[in-house]
């Protein structure tokens, strides 16, 4: 088989370049689509108020842990009233628990500490705990699942 070695002219070079880029573009798009296939889309955010019961269900100075459709929360009752915090530590997502003696939320993962208002006071957490709004209708408390 004889190979003809003629100079690659401008035309030929350009057409090859265009084809090359076209091919790369096509493959790149395909790869991107494959990655998109692997990355699931976030589910719809559910918003709404969830009944958590009478205020008296939450003892003074204690926190009740609840799981409301995937949101893990702690409902805390102090002198200032009832507040609901997300248990998700703002550092790297472990779960905080309420320590009654210290009146603090503690995260066991990297010793993050939050005070009773949810403020991050020690350890790596960069911001306060997320809060959920608590509404009182009559005797009943509702937590609205949409952080404030």
């Amino acid at each position, binding site marked *: 088989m004889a190979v003809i070695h003629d100079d690659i002219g401008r035309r030929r070079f350009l057409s090859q370049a265009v084809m090359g880029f076209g091919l790369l573009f096509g493959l790149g798009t395909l790869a991107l689509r494959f990655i998109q296939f692997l*990355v*699931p889309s976030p*589910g719809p955010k559910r918003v709404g108020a969830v009944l958590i019961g009478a205020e008296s269900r939450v003892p003074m100075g204690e926190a009740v842990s609840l799981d409301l459709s995937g949101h893990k929360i702690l409902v805390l009752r102090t002198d200032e009233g009832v507040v609901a915090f997300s248990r998700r530590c703002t550092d*790297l997502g*472990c*779960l905080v628990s309420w320590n009654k003696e210290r009146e603090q939320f503690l995260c066991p993962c990297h010793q993050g500490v939050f005070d009773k208002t949810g403020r991050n006071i020690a350890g*790596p*957490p*960069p911001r306060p705990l997320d809060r959920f709004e608590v509404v009182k209708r009559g005797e009943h408390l509702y937590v609205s699942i949409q952080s404030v």
Partner: protein
Amino acid sequence: MASEVSQAQVEGDQPVGQSKSWIDYIQKDLPEHLDWWPYTLGAIPLTLFGLLVITGLLLTFYYVPSPDKAYESIEQITNEVYLGWFVRGVHKFSVDLMILFLLFHVIRVFLTRAYQAAGELKWITGSVVLLVTFAMGFTGYSLVYDNVSYWGMTVVTSMLGNLPLVGTPLLYLLRGGEEVSGGTLLRLYDLHTKLLPVLLGGLVLGHVIVVRLVGFVDVPGSRSFHPFYPEHTMLMGAVAVGLLVLIVDLVMIFPPVLGPPANPQEVASDVSPPWYFSAPYMWITLLPGPVALWSLLGAAGLFVLYPFVDRILVQRGWPMAIINAVVGAAVVGVVVVLMILDTRM
């Protein structure tokens, strides 16, 4: 005709009659210093890698990557399957020893600066092997699905999720959703048993080939040579047998145990990861999030590209041999202190 051309090229490069056959590669002469153990540390992880592939394959016959079955299946492997505890134990100790010897190997190369010109590719492939091995370690202990695994997955994926731009997609990619779930376990299982082993195998092969092509570092005073086969092969075989004995003993003395099962509602009181993640774990505990994340990523990048950093600093007249000794000692010191702190907390 194409073959004629390549033949001519080969003969053009080398004197006629000296084209290499595979025998030459097998009987390649190795410099004498390879008899001294610090220079043979790379072959040990290679042996262990083989052992990991075999025991790993065996384990996949029983392991079920689903949140309700994973822990149970490991319990079954550990307590019911004939020699299951042994296979799992060998797998576990092989990882520990592989990482340990990779670290020794890295330290030796770092101190002798064997990554200098022509050796850069050896270092880069090798350093990526170390990073992928860590990824294997992480995905591997996640599969156990005990409480440490579960919160480890949560913490590590959130950490990657904090990266700018790529963070959120990466988080979804690894978790298979917003939260750590059965999807996460399946994804980490796929990574651990398919993608990463293939990648690691390729990298290890690449590293070995590069080492053979580029050649070994010149060590002053090492003049004489010995052939790869049979002398060096024998030595490696002896080391491999020794390792095997060591691992078997270790598994007998410390049979594998299983922590409490994963509980998404409560964090375990002690979430310390395996020893090889203990130092980074303490690092992210002691430092604020972004600082910890960026310093770890920066360190990994610097580590991979170190030969080039070395070259630039040498051009500026820095005494790199001394600097490497100091940096090496400092890093080892910090890591040991962090590990001790972890056991105290």
